[in-house]
């Protein structure tokens, strides 16, 4: 369970928030010329990385404002929270805790079948 630092209200319990999935998803340009496959990708496919993930949250039971967040999905650590109109922080400014694509971090994983 997370404590999320709402940029407008300060730190609050995660139960006050709703997750809005991947952030910075752009609707494709030139919609008239786009094939079914590209549309399908835009509608259905979202990033799902193990590690650094850019996502959106909304403070549903608070100020009801949307904001962006960078979270490590392998540890659930929140690395940065920024307002919706702020620049996307660079990926290489964050440390990646997983050495292989499906590896386990040293801390924060409950996968005891793999952790040594």
């Amino acid at each position, binding site marked *: *369970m997370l404590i999320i630092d709402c940029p407008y209200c300060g730190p609050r319990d995660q139960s006050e928030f709703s997750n809005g999935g991947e952030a910075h998803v752009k609707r494709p340009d030139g919609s008239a010329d786009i094939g*079914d496959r590209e549309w399908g990708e835009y509608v259905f*496919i979202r990033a799902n990385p193990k590690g650094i993930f850019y996502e959106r949250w909304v403070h549903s039971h608070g100020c009801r404002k949307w904001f962006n967040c960078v979270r490590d999905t392998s540890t659930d650590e929140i690395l940065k929270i920024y307002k919706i109109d702020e620049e996307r922080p660079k990926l290489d400014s964050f440390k990646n805790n997983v050495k292989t694509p499906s590896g386990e971090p040293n801390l*924060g994983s409950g996968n005891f079948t*793999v952790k040594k």
Partner: protein
Amino acid sequence: MKKKYSIFSIVKNAFKGHKDWPKMWRSPEPREFYDVIIIGGGGHGLGTAYYLAKEHGLKNIAVIEKGWLGGGNTGRNTTIIRSNYLWDDSAHLYEHSLKLWENLSTELNYNVMFSQRGVMNLAHNEHDIKEIKRRVSANNLNGIDSLWLSKEEIQKKVPIMNTDNLRYPVLGASYQPRGGTARHDAVAWGFAMRADEMGVDIIQNCEAHQIKTKNGKIEGVETSKGFIRANKVGVVASGHTGVLAETAGIRLPLQSKPLQALVSEPIKPIIDTVVMSSAVHAYVSQSDKGELVIGAGTDGYNSFTQRGGFDIIEETVRAMVELYPVFGKMKMLRQWGGIVDICPDASPIISKCDVEGLFFNCGWGTGGFKATPGSANVFAHTIAKNEAHQINSAFNLDRFASGKLVDEHGAAAVAH
């Protein structure tokens, strides 16, 4: 050597103090090349290797597993088996699986403890009643046993249930008598043992790092035990399938989330069927050891931590205590999470892709255990023949371009 289990082998080994049981499978080092590599040593993956060897005559097969067999979602689910899905495509797939379950212990000569104790899905409001009655009728049209139970009939079957004095009263339920539970580890072990006997190499502690392709064709898999070449690769890695697909440059419509479950201290038999409720989100069955096996929900955000948030447990326990006040003073023994890969339409993907020789069996979301033998069976067919079996033809990747989704959000018990 074929390992046969019977009452005689148990008696014989009892006299020897159970010291001479043969090893259930070998632990070989990987070869340089395999006809087929299956990534993921859970029930679906081991079953796929089993059916590839048994029904399609392939012998040079490897199953690679990051941890130990069945240590992922195969060993983390709540073991519920049913086939009461709404649409024809899903009904056929899950019913195919249920039929295989009914004969699995005999076929594998290994007791998977399949217990057809019935599965009940509760209705708590007018909409639930309509939706569930519609599903019961759809099931009957597909030849699947499914019936509507009134409140009185539910009370007779599960006397400990509080049907009236709660915020969302119980108004009725669907009931599938052939549904039930099975011992989840046994499924992985049974498939592993019989696959190993047919020459399948089961390689544990071998993590897939990268799926390598060249000119749109599969080359092999880079693993923690080195590079292994292969003609075909099947990825059955549940929550990590999307991450592995990414290494081959393929984006899948999957989101990975923790799904939690918990078990109580063991008690005497008190509930002899499986009761599920989507609306208040609580489902429960009692294991043969006497523990209540309780399924909770998914977290509202992507995560690979295999733990899950405590708020989800609280919500489920709240619903449990309201539905079954008698459980109010029980202690819970263990809680855990598994990472499930959720598809936008709550239906799986059992499909080939743009890369020749690369296949995916994923997107089972919160309900893949029930499908283990059926999924493995049709996935083996898909890999061996390079085309889908009639049963899984609807569960292709193309549906996310064509829009022909198989929307099973109603029948998938955990709301995604």
